[in-house]
């Protein structure tokens, strides 16, 4: 059960939009921006508030890779594994991050909730391949060494 404040915040987010099926995605985006993930309880709550079925809301939320039902770390690292990045060795970058952070294809977020590592199909920055993003910042021409150095830097920042 989520704290009451989550629902109050969600009410506030819903009030920014028309109470209608078409507002589902922007509402989900705002909730995710607020909490860095989409709490399942809130998805059910939103569905009810805007008059769609829970199954429909779940359908939309699982269709888009961008929505996550699991809490994410403070730093969300998106390693691009699109064609251009892949051929320019994005996999070693990803593996270095997994090793450094103790993560795996099954576990995306560190236990201290600092880092989440995920792959994306294309960041639209193929010229900078292999590229990766940490939250909203793009890091070009990555190597495993640069990736590990970046983690250390972020750890120092806290």
């Amino acid at each position, binding site marked *: 059960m989520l704290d009451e404040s989550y629902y109050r915040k969600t009410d506030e987010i819903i009030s920014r939009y028309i109470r209608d099926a078409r507002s589902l995605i922007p509402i989900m985006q705002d909730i995710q921006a607020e909490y860095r993930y989409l709490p399942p309880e809130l998805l*059910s709550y939103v569905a009810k508030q805007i008059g769609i*079925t829970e*199954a429909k*809301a*779940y*359908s939309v939320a*699982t269709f888009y890779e961008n929505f996550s039902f699991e809490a994410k770390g403070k730093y969300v690292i998106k390693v691009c594994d699109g064609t251009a990045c892949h051929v320019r060795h994005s996999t070693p970058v990803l593996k270095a991050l997994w090793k450094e952070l103790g993560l795996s294809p099954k576990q995306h977020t560190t236990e201290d909730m600092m880092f989440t590592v995920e792959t994306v199909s294309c960041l639209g920055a193929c010229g900078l391949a292999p590229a990766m993003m940490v939250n909203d910042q793009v890091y070009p021409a990555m190597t495993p060494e640069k990736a590990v150095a970046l983690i250390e830097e972020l750890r120092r920042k806290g």
Partner: protein
Amino acid sequence: MGTITINGKKVEFTNEKNVLSIIRKAGIEVPTLCYQPELSVFGACRLCTVEDDRGRCFASCSEEPRDGMVIYTHTERLRKHRKLIIELLLAAHCRDCTTCDKHGKCTLQKLAYQHGINTVRFANHREEMPVDFSSPAVVRDPGKCILCGNCIRVCNEIQGVGVLGFAHRGTEAMVSPAFERKMSETNCVACGQCRVVCPTGALTIHHNMSEVWHALLDPDTRVIAQVAPAVRVAVGEAFGLPKGENAMGKIVAGLHRMGFDEVFDTTYTADLTIMEESKEFLDRVGKGEKLPLLTSCCPAWVKFVENEYPEFKKNISTCRSPQQMFSAILKEYYRDPAHSGGKKTFVVSIMPCTAKKMEAARPDAYTYGEKDTDIVLTTHELIRMFDAHGVNLETMPSEACDMPFGIGSGGGVIFGATGGVTEAVLRRLADGHDAATLKAIAASGVRGDQGIKEITVPYNGMDVNICVASGLANARKVLESVKSGEKQYHFIEVMACPGGCVMGGGQPTDGTRVQRAKTRTRGLYAADGEMVIKKSNENPLMDVFYNSYFKDKVHDLLHNHQD
């Protein structure tokens, strides 16, 4: 309006919404998996693709007809195209056909055969997914799902419940309740309409046949069957009897052959329902409280109200459904050693309905601490058991039901069609029982396949406003209009399945929906026509019930007690 040329033959069309319906009107069968005329067009399976004279291929289900169109439905190119689609579907499909409940009735299986697919070229890489047995009504096997979306659309559009949806995407796409919950953890009302439209074995009836076989084998158990009205007009078809023919006598005989000790007709308690419900109705009208009275015969509807309109719970009639009344009476009657002869009593209820399975397991389905209905079998399971026991209804002579509960009225029989309960109530409340009175009631607007019917009848100087709805999406509309104050009804009859119990989730699904509804409804009214006793209150067993053995237990046996 216009003409299109199909395979070189001119076919006229009027207001058909898509090319596919014109093709079918012309008597040409084009395969489909995701097309259901009563649902929105989805256009996912692409099997109905046809070719025009310029070589353009398009799905005929989602193409509007235009005057002068020239199309071909079975060219070599289309045959190849269809074959490949089916092969690809089979590639990600469980192939345990021999043990599948849909065996012989599966559209995918039929199409694979028709298109000469003898081997499946592609390996199945789909991850094995667990089968969900959690619902007492339906079993969901995602490994057999072809993502046609029929179940999702029927649940949303016809039933307005929306338990199912697509989840994930690409090769991981699946049909699932929200958060991949089990069916029993959703607001599913167990109507089984999803199973009716499922072209494969992904959604099937939750079977209870083995429990019944087991009981039949036990010499210390008295196994009793009650058979609902809608079963008799749907069961015969599987044995070569004409569609919609009343096969009640044959069912009784078949059940006796299988070893049932007694066979009764649920119309008997349908009559009791009418007695109790009309009494309750007049009582509420007199007091002016808890109106509109909502019927309680349909468990999917009752569950729907509990889930979505709890404020109307008090309006639901306290009467148990005919199934639950009958089982309670049977258990009570045979509780007496003078009647039981020392045997255990096992009540099997044979229903057109999957929701009855859920109803039988409700906490209020117990009387004096004992479960009333032991097992609910659907018509589909009854056919399978008849087959397994070598009972062929076609050649079976008819037998009458057993006593002391073997008589029902015509009013009880028509419970199986939408408007039937209302018509039986009107018969009960009418003074006369002559042909003219009955005809006038039948013509009052209670009959017919419209989803929402409104009737106003004068009674004791007041106008009684009645609404009859079938399909829960329609029921929702009705409740919303009552809630907003737009409508004032005294009595609302709802059957969850569109068309009523004859179209229940436990019924066979051969042929088209329209055809099934028409023949079965006609069959029920014909069965009513043959009955001497048309009014529930004139059933001679009513007097017996109220004035002898059960005299002091009427409320305990016939009503739900928590209020």
